[in-house]
């Protein structure tokens, strides 16, 4: 079996060699160097004299290598990764879209990359101006009134947003007790509510996978602080009764929080601020093309309505009014820390500025027409895949799809093949798997989000791969259940990894294979 798989072209895949590479520590030899410091232009200081008993006497076992070995080490490691640059990455909810290279280039421009956060504001106007422009763009895109760029990632944005909710309720005399969260929500939502001191109350989805208005009306009470809603939902479905949802909440004094993970389905077409959302976060690493980088850095700005503005984290960017006597039109930008109602600071300094630069470069590259076309293409691609696969894969919810489509493995499970197996088999066809077993309300979910970045050719290859796998499930289910067959490692023993964790290399460890 292995013989035939290895030799023939399968979808996008032809076998090629990847090189083995040991841990960097195992390549180390004393005396090798990859650095050269310039000669000191000041007298040297003896650490023993200067530091006494707080001096380090035992060096850390860091590796010693030459520069070419380091280049080869990390380059070889890189070839073991799949990436958007290699092909479609249909991870639903994660929005793996193209990361434009001009973003990387401009984020490294000297005056921006080397700016110290405490430099005088007079020397930081360039950075502050682009932060201000990004804020304006995000407010226009979301239809909200105020924004903070400080949160470091989506979950951190959720935390900030729920802090705003709580601070506002407290200012009304009652923090309230619970946050409602649909059973289709991201895991970060309940975890966030708990951190902010709220009880989490689960909200069951209706038969269409959306919010059940009757259940919501019954559950919202004077103890409800907010509903955390993802819209479009994690099923890729727009909550078309969103205004009623907002009305039900607002009638009881509760707020509507929107998880903006799926904002890429809405940009330029509809604005959360117009349909009743009080506060939301954005993931710049999803909608606005900043790279995921193997798991970060992200950035999670929070936008809110005016009544929540006084509670935003400090500092807040403000423009001083221009001095008319001197004929200046606009005053300079500065950070305002004097915000007595603020929920406080959620991180040091001002946020992930490097990500703001990239996101703004993306918005400028698109303009209003490009942003709208991007959204339309993302939705077009998802619906194309849905149409091309719905005869072979079960579609548990027939509601119209926006930017992603969720199938279930019901038909394949009859043959003993699960969504996780199909996902692994997809690797053999040259694709990254879709999101597996999420959202939780779909048993055996296959959550597919192509994004706008895929051409018809790549989409057709993906469809072909999925159809071929469906056929394999019928003909030779074992082939799918034991996939992947083409990767440099086969399925890894996760149980062993968790039972006896080895989380670091140690000197004198067993030599590698």
């Amino acid at each position, binding site marked *: 079996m292995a013989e035939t798989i290895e030799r023939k072209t399968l979808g996008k895949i032809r076998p090629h060699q990847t090189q083995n590479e040991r841990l960097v520590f195992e390549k180390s030899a004393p005396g090798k160097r990859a*650095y050269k410091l310039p000669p000191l232009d000041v007298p040297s200081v003896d*650490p023993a004299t200067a*530091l006494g*008993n707080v001096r380090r*006497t035992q060096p*850390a076992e860091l590796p010693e290598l030459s*520069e070419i070995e380091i280049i080869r080490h990390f380059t070889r*490691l*890189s070839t*073991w990764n*799949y990436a958007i640059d290699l092909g479609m990455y249909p991870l639903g909810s994660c929005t793996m879209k*193209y990361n434009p290279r001009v973003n990387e280039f401009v984020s490294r421009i*000297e*005056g*921006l990359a*080397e700016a*110290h*956060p*405490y430099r005088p504001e007079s*020397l930081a106007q*360039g950075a502050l*101006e*682009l932060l201000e422009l990004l804020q304006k763009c995000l407010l*226009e895109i979301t239809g909200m009134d105020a924004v903070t760029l400080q949160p470091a990632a989506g*979950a951190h944005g959720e935390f900030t947003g729920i802090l705003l909710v709580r601070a506002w309720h407290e200012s009304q005399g009652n923090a309230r007790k619970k946050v409602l969260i649909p059973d289709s929500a991201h895991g*970060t939502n*309940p975890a966030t509510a708990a*951190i*902010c001191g709220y009880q989490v109350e689960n909200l069951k989805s209706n038969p269409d996978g959306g919010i059940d208005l009757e259940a919501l009306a019954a559950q919202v009470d004077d103890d409800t602080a907010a509903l955390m809603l993802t819209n479009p939902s994690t099923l890729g479905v727009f909550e078309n009764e*969103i205004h009623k949802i907002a009305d039900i909440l607002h009638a009881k004094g509760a707020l509507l929080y929107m998880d903006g993970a799926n904002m890429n389905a809405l*940009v330029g*077409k509809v*604005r959360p601020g*117009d349909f009743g959302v009080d506060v939301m976060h954005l993931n710049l690493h999803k909608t606005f093309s900043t*790279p995921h*980088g*193997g*798991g*970060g850095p992200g950035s999670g700005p929070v936008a809110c309505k005016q009544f929540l503005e006084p509670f935003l984290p400090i500092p807040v960017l403000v423009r001083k009014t221009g001095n008319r006597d001197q004929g200046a039109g606009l005053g300079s930008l500065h950070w305002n820390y004097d915000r007595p109602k603020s*929920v406080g*600071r*959620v*991180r*040091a*300094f001002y*946020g992930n500025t490097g990500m703001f630069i990239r996101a703004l470069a993306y918005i*400028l590259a698109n*303009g209003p027409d*490009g942003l709208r*076309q991007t959204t339309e293409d993302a939705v077009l691609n998802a619906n194309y895949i849905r*149409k091309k696969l719905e005869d072979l894969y079960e579609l548990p919810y027939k509601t119209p799809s926006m930017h992603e489509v969720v199938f279930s493995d019901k038909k394949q499970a009859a043959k003993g093949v699960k969504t996780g197996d199909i996902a*692994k088999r997809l*690797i053999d066809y040259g694709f990254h798997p879709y999101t597996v077993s999420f959202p939780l309300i779909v048993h055996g979910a296959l959550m597919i989000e192509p994004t706008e970045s895929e*051409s*018809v050719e790549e989409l057709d290859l993906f469809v072909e791969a999925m159809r071929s796998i469906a056929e394999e499930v019928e003909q030779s289910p074992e082939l799918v259940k034991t996939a992947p067959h083409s990767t440099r490692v*086969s399925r*890894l023993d996760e149980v062993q990894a968790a039972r006896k*964790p080895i*989380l*670091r290399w140690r000197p004198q460890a067993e030599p590698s294979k």
Partner: protein
Amino acid sequence: MRYLPKSPAEREQMLKTIGAQSIDDLFAIIPAEYRLTRDLDVPRQMGESEIVDYFKAAGEKNATDYASFLGAGAYRHYRPVIIDALVQRGEFLTSYTPYQAEITQGTLQAIFEFQTMIAELTGMDVANASMYDGSTGAAEAVLMAMRVTGRHKAVVARTVHPEYREVIGTYLQHRDLATAEVGYDAKTGRLDLKALDAAVSEETAAVLVQNPNFFGTIEDVAAIAAIAHKKGALLIVSIAEAVSLGVVKPPVEADIVSMEAQSFGVALSYGGPFCGVIAAKEQYLRQMPGRLAGQTVDGDGNRGFVLTLSTREQHIRREKATSNICTNQALVALMATIFLTVYGKEGIRELAEHNLAKAGYAAKTLGDVAGAKLLFNSAPRFHEFVLQTDEQPAAWQKRLLDEKIVGGVELSRWYPELKNASLWCATETMPRAKMDAAAKVLARVAVEA
């Protein structure tokens, strides 16, 4: 639009395949009254050259030709060029969190190497894959200590970075967790051990200190640990300047270390993205927040790596997770890993010694200026020091700016009792000539052009 790989004809064909008349059909579910019928009011679509010009102009407006004595939690160190060459490989840059281990072994092995290096440097048993930054990492470390001990009070040194303390305050405000602050010895700038002893009780979950502390002085971690441990509290050491570990004794007596690794090859970038990380004694592993890469074997017995112990995390445990953290700082952690590989065992010590020498010279030169004196001069320090001047800092700051030098950060905004005091930093990148020039400006002696 140049990022969109479709021709108008292909779009039409796809709509036909789907069975839609127009693209609007696909958005029909959105109630008409909310649909946007106008263009967004954002700048028009720009060419790539225009975008580059826009950001270059912003960079120039920011000014680049200033020497800077700023530190205080964000440090300028030289960044070897291979860092950016390697992290811009698309396979690292445009890859997702390595949940699909078979096709993300590169990222996973790199994280495993990062965890190892951090554990080695800090003297801890294990380290995680990264946190957002040093400030949120410190807050998460306090919450972790609370879970480990089941206690509900924390004692925080006033010499922890003021912004870190603010973040801790934000994180704890809705937890049943009271914090007390402990001051510093006016002579040494080190933690007031007597006050600490009085503040720690059997209800204290954790003592949090920074080392080197915010004033740049190095704490007696062993003595602090003894006080904390005597009452069963955990000791958390926050490290804002990671390069210090090249010459400063690692906090082996600590139970948890929260570190900001920005100094390891990460650009200042006006404050972020940086790279937090939490390291700890092995017995506290299961209360650790954040992702962890672990070694295992594949079906054929080959070594491989996976994300592990994820039952601590939000995507499995939801509201019972150790933290809500999801995305962290993987690519920045990779920068740190490459930086540490470049410098290596000897280089990190040599680099730290250069910092020690530069700061030693800067402190002496500036401290010798008439009307200026060093505070906390009797305690050991790394590359930061506190200078007190007869003049108000605003006065000499302005004179320095005229000479294209940015002086130290004024401390009174956080420590009103330290009048006319400022925190200065000199790393290996600071030329002697700039230190001499700064001293002349402070002394009101003309600087030669």
